[in-house]
């Protein structure tokens, strides 16, 4: 659903989306790029944004929804202030990433893919970060923590309280 007020007002999110589209173009092959930049700006891709984009790019909403749900990079739910992405690549796994995940789940009392009720932390597993020399490794909003043990978990969370 796009803005229903019918007046000249335009949701500022949509103004930003227009800017992104003007820059990248509205060709269907730019859909993934556009979605990526919009998510970077908004944090997630709610339904009204997808609907607006469908109209602006001339692509059916069903198709956009199909793309959004296909790729793991996109999310339709808001995420927490801090996103803890734990690398679940093979190198990290053989060095005990599974135990790190379990410890975060225990301390935050949420499962991977969930956000704490206060909206502070989102716990996510992610594909290889390519920092295998630091395995097991995780990333909190771009800050990398490596060579982790379960003892490090409480300290990392405390940094973002």
């Amino acid at each position: 659903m796009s803005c229903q007020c019918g007046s000249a007002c335009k949701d500022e999110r949509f103004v930003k989306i227009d800017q992104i589209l003007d820059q990248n173009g509205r060709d269907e092959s730019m859909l993934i790029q556009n979605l990526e930049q919009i998510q970077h700006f908004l944090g997630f891709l709610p339904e009204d944004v997808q609907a607006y984009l469908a109209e602006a790019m001339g692509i059916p909403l069903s198709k956009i929804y199909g793309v959004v749900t296909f790729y793991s990079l996109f999310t339709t739910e808001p995420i927490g202030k801090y996103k803890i992405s734990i690398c679940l690549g093979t190198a990290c796994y053989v060095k005990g990433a599974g135990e790190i995940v379990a410890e975060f789940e225990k301390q935050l009392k949420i499962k991977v893919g969930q956000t704490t009720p206060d909206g502070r932390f989102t716990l996510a597993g992610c594909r290889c970060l390519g920092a295998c020399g630091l395995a097991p490794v995780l990333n909190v909003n771009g800050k990398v923590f490596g060579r982790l043990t379960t003892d490090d978990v409480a300290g990392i969370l405390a940094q973002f309280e």
Partner: protein
Amino acid sequence: MEFYRTHVLVCAGTGCTSMDSRLLRQNLYEEIIKRGLEKEVKVIETGCFGFCNLGPIMVVYPEGTFYCQVKPQDAAQIVEEHFIKGRPVERLLYQHEKETTDVVEMENIEFFKHQKRVALHNCGLIDPENIEEYIAQDGYFALAHCLKDLTPLEVIDIIKKSGLRGRGGGGFPTGTKWEFAYKSKDDQKYVVCNADEGDPGAFMDRSILEGDPHGILEAMAIAGYAIGANQGYIYVRAEYPIAVERLKHAIKQAREYGLLGDHIFGTDFCFNIDIRLGAGAFVCGEETALLASTEGRRGEPRPRPPFPAVKGLFDKPTIINNVETFANVTKIIRNGWEWFASMGTEKSKGTKVFALAGKINNIGLIEIPMGTTLRTIIYDIGGGIPKGKKFKAAQTGGPSGGCLTEAHLDIPIDYDNLTAAGSMMGSGGLIVMDEDNCMVDIARFFLEFTQEESCGKCPPCRIGTKRMLEILDKITTGKGTPEDLDNLETLATTIKSASLCALGQTAPNPVLSTIKHFRKEYEAHIYDKKCPARVCQALLSYKIDPQKCKGCGLCARYCPAEAITGKIKEPFTIDVEKCIKCGDCITRCKFGAISKE
């Protein structure tokens, strides 16, 4: 051009950047300016050196002094001691455990000694953001040679004769692929670079893009000339922000220099390159899925034929090559196919880059001639297994491959030998596992990955991998039954033969290969309900050693299942029936009295 007496190369790859190499460079700049050395000493950001375990890495030329694990706060001392007084800072030099003295030069380090850097040649040598440094390494000369002196067919012939095979996993001869696309008559053709490096634990493509982006652009232009295309796309993972930035920068520079765009080198050849971002779907490494995703759609594969060389991107003839494949092309053109074909084994020519990771001392990126043995990789280059543990297996080919065991340590590594051993070359991930890794658990890990990444289009892959994962879950939680192994093998055979694309066709490989080499481990889980490597939580039983227990009762207080009982100051005991195996008691016990087996 300015001359500097000292060049300082600081790694700006993802691994070292994660370890504050950016701040180290910043501090070096500041210290150099503070001491008025900015006209004498130049700091250069390079691509990955490969020795990621010891990052941040820094090399000082002309001496070639190799510093490792340099911290940002070391900058002042390095500038003072090395750049002013001319004495290397000894505590930061690489020290090999077998050698008594510190090793100063890079080429004498065991990790680099056995390597031959062809695809990685410029990584760690040049500033990837400066096109002139690339040109100074004979960059864009291969493209000029092709455009000025060779016909497209001659270019294809050189690539064919070199014996170069696709480095992305399949191992298809690159020259033959180009020839197919050349023969497809159409007014529009495309060149696509597959940089959707999905194998968890492989990072060679990323390092090449970060360290030598122009090498890929040049090779794509050569491919464009050979097949008759004027447009290229690089499909790269959005998870690689540094690589994406360097590529964008490189494309811009190449356009400014007239090395991409219209009438390159004054000829009729025009070629442009654009970037398309992948959004996190393993299946997009499969070529037809990659094409769908490049067109902005869901990355679902389609049946072949028609092959992309006939009907590819936007239904036009397209070649898709992996990053590492392209990285070899310019070197083959410059040095001749004879040079390339002189390296490697009979059917696998040249070198291969591996991302060495897991339970190994020297984690990093290595490039070795085809035919090198696993023993050389693990024990000479890799420096062996940490903590004196025993080597158990090495997984190649990621979730599509299989494991190699001690029996395979001495076979020469090439495409055909790996396939014969039940594994595959894959894109080059090489994960080493030691005796503490449970192979059933590893197989379950890979299957969980492929199951999650299955696009869902064809039932054998969508449903079959799910059923296999359920069986493996059963086995690793102690509910396995004797018929499970047969069921796994039957399912695996069906999925392999009936799936639409390579994801499904190879998904059962890790399971089949671990059953083949570690059947006893599966049987221990199923019949004895034991995990020999003590990994599978549900199969462990916790025990309190009465000799060590002081009877403090701390464990009992924290046990969420009230499974621990006893009298204070007397040894406590665990009721295995009640125990939920959470492991909390082990972390609580101050006397190390609780163990699992």
